């Protein structure tokens, strides 16, 4: 799984964008700006997924995450945008929090690089024919309409091997809907129903 040539160039560009936006998501003063930077990180990640040949998930991520969840965030932000936030965005224990987060980050980084050093399990080169399959140019004469391998297999696995989690997820979503409806009722509606 080597991204070489142009893919590497794209990879580095996208990681820069993602990191830059992630930093600002955390440190922006105005919450709406935080949301904007979060959106850019998610779009950069979507593009990274494309590099990793995961087209369906990239599309789903942008559609659901950016189009759905973050629109909801902006909705709520607009409803309750208090001005007080602008003075100091950080709470009292900001030093301690930053230290802990840095500690955890370093720990994970250490683990990753350590495995990398000790002849890490990423070192093994994929077999030659496997590489050939991967980096082969798309066959020009193939009918344009053939469905991308990724989406098809994902669909199949979702409905065959991953059926149980699929059902659990749908039940979870149902619960979320009922819960949010119950939460969103205001006093007047409550009196009428109770």
């Amino acid at each position, binding site marked *: 799984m080597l991204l070489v040539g142009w893919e590497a160039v794209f990879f580095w560009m996208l990681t820069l964008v993602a990191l830059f936006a992630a930093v600002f998501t955390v440190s922006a003063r105005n919450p709406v700006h935080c949301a904007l930077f979060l959106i850019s990180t998610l779009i950069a990640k979507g593009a990274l997924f494309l590099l990793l040949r995961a087209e369906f998930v990239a599309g789903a991520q942008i559609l659901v995450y950016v189009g759905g969840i973050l629109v909801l965030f902006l909705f709520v932000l607009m409803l*309750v945008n208090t001005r007080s936030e602008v003075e100091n965005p950080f709470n009292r224990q900001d030093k301690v929090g930053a230290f802990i987060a840095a500690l955890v980050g370093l720990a994970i980084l250490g683990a990753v690089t350590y495995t990398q050093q000790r002849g890490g399990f990423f070192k093994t080169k994929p077999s030659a024919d496997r590489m050939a399959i991967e980096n082969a140019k798309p066959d020009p004469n193939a009918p344009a309409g053939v469905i991308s391998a990724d989406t098809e297999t994902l669909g199949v696995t979702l409905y065959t091997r991953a059926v149980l989690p699929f059902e659990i997820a749908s039940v979870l979503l149902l619960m979320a809907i009922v819960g949010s409806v119950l939460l969103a009722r205001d006093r007047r509606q409550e009196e009428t129903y109770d």
Partner: protein
Amino acid sequence: MNAIPLVTHHTETLFDSEQMVLSMGPQHPSTHGVLRVILKLDGERVVDLDCDIGYLHRGAEKIFENRLYPMIAPYFDRLDYIAAVSNGLLYVETVEKAMGLEVPPRAQYLRVILTELNRLSSHLLWLATHALDIGGFTVFLYAFREREEILKIFENFFGARLTCHAFRIGGMTYDAYPEFEAQVRAFCDLFPKRLEEYETLLNENRIWLGRTVGIGIISAEDAISLGLTGAPLRGSGVDYDVRKTDPYECYADLEFDIPIGENGDTFDRYLVRMEEMRQSRRIIMQALDRLPDGPVMGKVPKVIRVPAGEVYHSIEGPKGELGLYLVSDGGTKPYRLRMRPASFVNLGALRKMAVGSLVSDVVAVIGSLDIVLGEIDR
């Protein structure tokens, strides 16, 4: 309901204030003229409503008390500038009734034709602005196309399109121009087809029904106790039309009907006015057929003095019953001249119709009441 503080834009977040005060200000696109409606909203629903009028108040009644009788007539065209001809008719008839003057028959028939034409042009303007507020831009342009025909006839007859003035105390200044009858007859033949055009666009239109059926309902008792007159009253099912109950000019011997609604909502008022347009056309055709010749100006003394006494005279204006209460002390100026405007009383009913509905319904109800601010503020 106590007086709502006029301007309260204090809430910066939408959520925390239970009620938001929205002021549909004097220069709002859908308030016909300088009307300011202060809405107390709970989310989208109107909790309370107060009309702030008086922006166009010119102190007309004070001026009347200091003008000679003939000089007052032009003021009446400026009161309800959309139905200027019927305002003029109201004033002239009141003075004739107070003085007991006889208006020659030709003048009576001409006056009836012109007032009915004015009723058509006022109803067409109502249809245009009502449909525009609810979003039907095409009906707006269709209705104005017809209104233009009528205004051409007025221009030829009166010399003015909006503030027309040809009725004098005792008759009319000038007789009909030669092609008058031909043009009016041409318009009357053309008009039914055009009415069909509006009705195909609106009557069966599901969105139009959704926006007007069941909106701003007012029952017959409430309408009567609120003093509603004209289409809003007839929309609730009360048979009251001054042209029938207290006929003036030559309405007594003309054949026409009064449309009566059933449910008193915006859609019924719309149907009543559309039917009224057909009946007006019918009146015009009959009056044209029976137009007698002869003089158009009756016997009127040089200096007009109304004998002492008082009189209340009302006619059926396009907006409702227009009344004029004249108290004279025998001099050359009226002692007290009070005009009872139809839209002023109809607007009083807006609060009863619109409270509890949504913001966009308030716009639809204002449109269906057909109010004119010149007449309300006097």
